[in-house]
C-alpha cells in the first residue's frame, strides 16, 4: 500500500506555503497597469476643477489643441454628443464623466487631453481656460439639509433638496417599549471621518480599440473585471463579447478599485475616436481627491440597559455624507451597506436603525474600504458605545461584553436586524485576549501609574463581521447576483490551471487557491497555476472586495475540485475494474475498498481522462463551478490595545497590541497573519492620523501624502497575533470564513477605547478620529468632547 500523502508537504490546507506570486514581484517583474506599453499608445491627462461648487461659464480648449503632440481634447460638451457626459453609478444614481453644467467637488474631472507623451498632455491641460462662477459650498449633512441650502444636484428631476434617501430597518415600536423599561440609557454621538483606501498604486487604464476587429480591450486597475465589462456594455452600448477587460497585477485595492471612474470612460472613448491605445495613469492627488472615499458618517445611538448590565435594546441613527454623486459600491438592496450588522455579536433582543444619505460638494464613491460595506462604521460605533455603556454602568469592560455576547450554544443566531450568525466562540476568544494582554495586571499598573501622573489606558474591541456577500436572494450589484466562480482544467499529466471570477490584489490567490485544490484533489499545489482578471478567459464572477474571495470564490474552488474528483472516481473505477461504489478516496488516490493496495493516483485518473476513458464517457477532466453561498460567514475577533497618553502634549504611544482572530479554518496561516497585520496597521492609521477633511470652501485637506498621513515602519507598532480559537464555518465547504478586513474593521475602536480609557478621569465621552495630539490635549485640558467634523476650524 502506498503511503498516504502529507497534506502540508504538498502545500494543502494549513500549509504556510511561500507565495508563488512573490517570484516576479521581488525581481521587479510584476505587471501592473502602468507597466504595459502598446504599439502606438497615446497618453491621457485629466484637468480637474479647483473649486468645490461652481457653474461653468465657458471652457476654451483652443490653446491646448495648438500644442504639438496633442491628438484630442475632450470636454463634457463633446462627451454629451455621445451621451457619455454622465454615467450611471453602482447605486442607481448618475455621475458626471466630464462636467457640463457645474462642478460639484474640488478635483472633479472637467476636461482631458490625449497626447503623444504624458508631459505634453499635462502641458495641454494647463493651457485649457475654464471660467467658473463660484456657488455656495456644502461640506457636511447639517449644511446639506439646512434651510435655503443650495441644491447640488439641480441636474436631476425630482431632486428638490440634497437628501438622497431615508432608510430604516428593525422594530421601532418594540425598541421604543424596551427603552421605556430601561434602568439606564447610554448615548453616544460621533463622526467617523472621511478616509481613503489609498493603495500605493493609483488607478489607471489602457483602452485599446481595434477598428479592424471591433474589439475593445481595456487593461485596468479593477478589483471586479466582470462588473466593469457589464458596465461598459451597458454604458458605452458596445456588444459584451467585443469587450475584454484585463486586470493585471494590482498595487493594492482595499475597495478603491471597485467603482467605474471617469478616467476609465474617457480613455475608452478616446481610443475609439483615435483608433489607438490610450493610457491614463492617475497621479496621487487625483486618486485622493476624486476616487472612492470611505466612511464620512455621523452616528448617534443609544443603548437601553438593565442595572445588571444586560442590553435590552439598541437605537441608532446614521447621517451619511455621500459627496456629489451617490456612487457607493454596495449591494443594491442596502442603502447604507450592512450598517445594520452593528451589535451582531451581542445578544440584543430588539433594535432599530434609521439612516439618511445626503449630497455634499465632496468627492463621490463611498467604497467598502477594507470592509464589508459600512461594517467598519457599524463595528466602530458598536464598540465605542459598548465601552461608554460599561463605563456608565460602572461595569468592567470585559465583563460587560462577556455578559452580553451571543453564547456558543445560541448558534445559529438571528440578530434583531435579521442576519443569521453561523458560529463562534466569543467568550473563549475574549479569554485568550485578556490573558495575552495581562488584563488584571495591567489594571493594577494603570492604577499605580495614575498616582504618578501617568495616563495608561486599555482598549478592547470585540466584533463579528458579515462576510462573503452574498447569497443571491439578498445580494446583487446592478441586478447581477453576487455569486462567484471557479474553473479547473486538469491536464493529462496531472498539472492544472485554475481560474476564478475573483481578482487578487495582494491577498495571494495564486498561492492559496492552489492549496484548496491540493486539499481536495491531492495534486501538489505547485502543479496548479492560478489565473484571474481576464474576462475573456476567467469565468464570470463579481470580483474581490468585502472579504468575499475566500467565502465565495474560495468555496467555488472547492466545489469545482469536488466535481473533478467525482469524475476522477468514475475513471478510477474503470481503471481498477470495479464498480464506483467499491472505490474509496484518500488524499491524491482512489483505492479498492476491499483491497487498499490496489489503487490509482489522481494523476493516473487525469491521464485516463484523455487516453483511456470508459465507453460513453465524455473525455477530458475540466469543469466549472458557480457558488451561491447559503449564508454569510461570520469571523469573530478580539483586539486589545494598551497605550500611554502624555497629558502635556496629547501624544499617545501604543504599548501593546493583541489580536485574537477566529476566522475559521486557515488556508495559509502565514498569509492570514499577513492580512491581520495589514488590517491592524490601517486601524492604527485611522485612529491616529489618516483622514480627509475639508475647509468651508470645500478645499480638500488630505489630497496628497504630505497632508494625508499614513504610518511608516517607524510609527507602526508591533503586533501579537493569536490563532488558538478556530470555529469552522458550518456552511463553507472547507470551513473558512475570510479574514482580510477584520482587523481594519474592529481595530480602530480598540485604539480609541484605549485612549479614552487613559483619560477616563476627564469626563470626556468622545474624541473623533483620528486622535491627533491636539484633539487629545484639548479633551484633557478643556474636559470636553472634541468633534472632527468638517469644515476644519479656522484655528486648525
Amino acid at each position, binding site marked *: 500500500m502506498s503511503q498516504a500523502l502529507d497534506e502540508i508537504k504538498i502545500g494543502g490546507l494549513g500549509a504556510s506555503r511561500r507565495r508563488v506570486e512573490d517570484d516576479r*514581484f*521581488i525581481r521587479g517583474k510584476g505587471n501592473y497597469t502602468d507597466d504595459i506599453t502598446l504599439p502606438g499608445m497615446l497618453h491621457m491627462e485629466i484637468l480637474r476643477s479647483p473649486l468645490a461648487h461652481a457653474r461653468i461659464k465657458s471652457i476654451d480648449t483652443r490653446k491646448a489643441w495648438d500644442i504639438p503632440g496633442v491628438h484630442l481634447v475632450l470636454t463634457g460638451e463633446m462627451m454629451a454628443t455621445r451621451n457619455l457626459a454622465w454615467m450611471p453609478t453602482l447605486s442607481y444614481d448618475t455621475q458626471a464623466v466630464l462636467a457640463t453644467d457645474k462642478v460639484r467637488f474640488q478635483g472633479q474631472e472637467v476636461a482631458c487631453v490625449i497626447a503623444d507623451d504624458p508631459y505634453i498632455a499635462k502641458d495641454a491641460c494647463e493651457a485649457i481656460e475654464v471660467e467658473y462662477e463660484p456657488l455656495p459650498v456644502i461640506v457636511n449633512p447639517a449644511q446639506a439639509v439646512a434651510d435655503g441650502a443650495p441644491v447640488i444636484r439641480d441636474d436631476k428631476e425630482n431632486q428638490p433638496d440634497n437628501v438622497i434617501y431615508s432608510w430604516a430597518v428593525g422594530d421601532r415600536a418594540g425598541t421604543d417599549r424596551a427603552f421605556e423599561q430601561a434602568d439606564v440609557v447610554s448615548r453616544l454621538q460621533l463622526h467617523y471621518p472621511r478616509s481613503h483606501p489609498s493603495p500605493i*498604486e493609483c488607478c489607471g487604464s489602457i483602452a485599446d480599440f481595434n477598428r479592424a476587429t471591433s474589439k475593445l480591450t481595456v487593461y485596468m486597475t479593477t478589483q471586479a473585471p466582470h462588473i466593469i465589462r457589464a458596465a461598459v456594455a451597458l454604458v458605452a452600448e458596445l456588444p459584451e463579447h467585443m469587450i475584454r477587460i484585463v486586470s493585471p497585477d494590482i498595487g493594492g485595492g482595499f475597495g478603491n478599485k471597485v467603482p467605474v471612474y471617469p478616467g476609465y470612460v474617457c480613455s475608452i472613448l478616446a481610443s475609439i475616436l483615435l483608433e489607438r491605445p490610450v493610457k491614463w495613469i492617475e497621479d496621487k492627488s487625483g486618486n485622493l481627491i476624486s476616487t472612492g472615499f470611505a466612511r464620512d458618517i455621523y452616528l448617534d445611538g443609544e443603548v437601553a440597559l438593565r442595572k445588571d448590565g444586560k442590553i435590552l435594546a439598541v437605537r441608532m441613527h446614521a447621517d451619511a455624507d455621500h459627496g456629489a454623486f451617490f456612487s457607493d459600491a454596495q449591494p443594491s438592496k442596502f442603502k447604507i451597506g450592512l450598517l445594520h450588522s452593528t451589535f451582531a455579536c451581542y445578544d440584543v433582543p430588539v433594535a432599530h436603525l434609521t439612516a439618511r444619505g445626503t449630497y455634499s460638494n465632496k468627492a463621490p464613491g463611498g467604497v467598502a474600504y477594507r470592509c464589508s460595506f459600512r461594517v467598519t462604521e457599524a463595528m466602530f460605533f458598536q464598540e465605542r458605545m459598548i465601552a461608554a455603556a460599561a463605563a456608565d454602568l460602572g461595569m468592567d469592560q470585559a465583563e460587560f461584553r462577556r455578559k452580553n455576547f451571543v453564547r456558543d450554544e445560541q448558534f445559529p443566531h438571528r440578530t434583531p436586524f435579521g442576519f443569521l450568525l453561523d458560529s463562534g466562540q466569543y467568550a473563549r476568544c475574549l479569554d485568550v485576549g485578556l490573558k495575552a494582554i495581562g488584563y488584571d495586571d495591567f489594571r493594577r499598573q494603570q492604577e499605580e501609574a495614575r498616582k504618578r501622573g501617568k495616563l495608561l489606558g486599555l482598549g478592547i474591541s470585540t466584533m463579528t463581521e458579515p462576510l462573503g456577500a452574498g447569497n443571491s436572494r439578498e445580494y446583487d450589484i446592478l441586478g447581477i447576483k453576487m455569486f462567484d466562480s471557479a474553473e479547473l482544467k486538469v491536464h493529462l499529466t496531472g498539472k492544472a490551471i485554475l481560474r476564478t471570477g475573483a481578482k487578487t490584489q495582494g491577498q495571494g490567490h495564486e498561492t492559496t487557491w492552489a492549496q484548496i485544490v491540493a486539499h481536495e484533489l491531492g495534486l501538489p499545489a505547485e502543479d496548479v497555476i492560478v489565473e484571474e482578471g481576464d474576462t475573456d478567459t476567467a469565468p464570470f464572477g463579481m470580483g474581490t472586495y468585502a472579504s468575499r474571495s475566500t467565502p465565495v470564490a474560495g468555496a467555488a474552488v472547492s466545489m469545482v475540485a469536488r466535481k473533478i474528483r467525482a469524475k476522477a472516481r468514475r475513471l478510477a473505477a474503470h481503471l481498477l475494474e470495479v464498480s464506483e461504489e467499491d472505490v474509496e478516496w484518500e488524499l491524491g488516490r482512489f483505492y479498492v475498498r476491499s483491497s487498499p493496495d490496489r489503487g490509482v493516483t489522481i494523476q493516473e485518473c487525469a491521464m485516463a481522462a484523455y487516453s483511456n476513458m470508459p465507453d460513453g464517457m465524455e473525455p477530458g477532466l475540466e469543469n466549472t463551478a458557480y457558488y451561491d453561498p447559503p449564508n454569510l460567514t461570520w469571523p469573530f475577533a478580539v483586539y486589545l490595545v494598551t497605550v500611554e497618553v502624555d497629558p502635556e502634549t496629547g501624544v499617545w504611544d501604543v504599548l501593546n497590541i493583541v489580536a485574537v482572530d477566529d476566522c475559521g479554518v486557515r488556508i495559509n496561516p502565514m498569509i492570514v497573519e499577513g492580512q491581520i497585520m495589514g488590517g491592524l496597521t490601517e486601524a492604527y492609521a485611522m485612529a491616529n492620523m489618516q483622514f480627509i477633511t475639508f475647509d468651508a470652501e470645500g478645499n480638500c485637506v488630505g489630497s496628497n501624502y*504630505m497632508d494625508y498621513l499614513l504610518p*511608516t515602519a517607524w510609527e507602526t507598532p508591533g503586533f501579537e497575533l493569536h490563532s488558538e480559537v478556530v470555529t469552522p464555518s458550518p456552511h463553507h465547504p472547507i470551513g473558512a470564513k475570510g479574514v482580510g478586513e477584520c482587523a481594519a474593521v474592529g481595530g480602530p475602536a480598540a485604539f480609541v477605547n484605549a485612549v479614552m480609557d487613559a483619560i477616563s478621569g476627564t469626563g470626556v465621552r468622545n474624541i473623533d478620529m483620528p486622535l491627533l495630539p491636539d484633539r487629545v490635549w484639548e479633551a484633557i485640558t478643556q474636559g470636553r468632547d472634541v468633534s472632527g467634523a468638517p469644515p476644519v476650524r479656522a484655528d486648525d
Partner: protein
Amino acid sequence: MTIVYEDRGDEATSDVPVNRIRFTINGQKMVAEIEPRLLLSHLIRRGLGLTGTHMGCDTTNCGACTVLVDGRPVKSCTMLAVQADGHAIETVEGLSGPSELHPLQEGFKAEHGLQCGFCTPGMMMAAKALLTENPSPTEEDVRWALSGNLCRCTGYQNIVKSVLWAADKLRSQS
C-alpha cells in the same frame, strides 16, 4: 524619450530642448538624449523599460520609486534625469545575478514581506543601502531606514523581519 511630432511648421515643434547624458544603469554604460524636465523615474521606466521601479505618489513620500544613485537611496520621481549625468543608477532589476537572488529578495519571500508587491522594489533598494552601510542593523535601525517608504498591505512587521533575514544571510556569506 523619442517623440515624433506632427510638423505644423511652427516654432514650438523645433523648440523642444534636448540634453545628452551619460550614466550607468545596473552596471551598464548608457547615453540618452532627453528633455531636461524628464524625471529620473520616467527615464528608468519608459526610456529604459525597467518597470520594476514603481511610481506611487510623485511627491517624494511613498518611496515606491526608490533607486540607488552611487549607492545612496534616492526617490527617482523627484530627481531630474539630467542630474543622473555621470552617475551610477541601480534598480531592482540589478539586485539579483543571472541565477541567484539577492538575500533581500530571498528574505522578502521567506518572511512574507510583501503582499501586492508595489512598494517592494523601493523597500528592497532602501534596505540595500542600509545593509551596505550597517551590516548588523537592529530592528529600530531597519524601521528608521525604511521610514521613507510606505506600505499599505503588510503593516511593516514582516518587512522588518525580511531585512533582518537578509542581514543575517549577508553576514554569514562574508
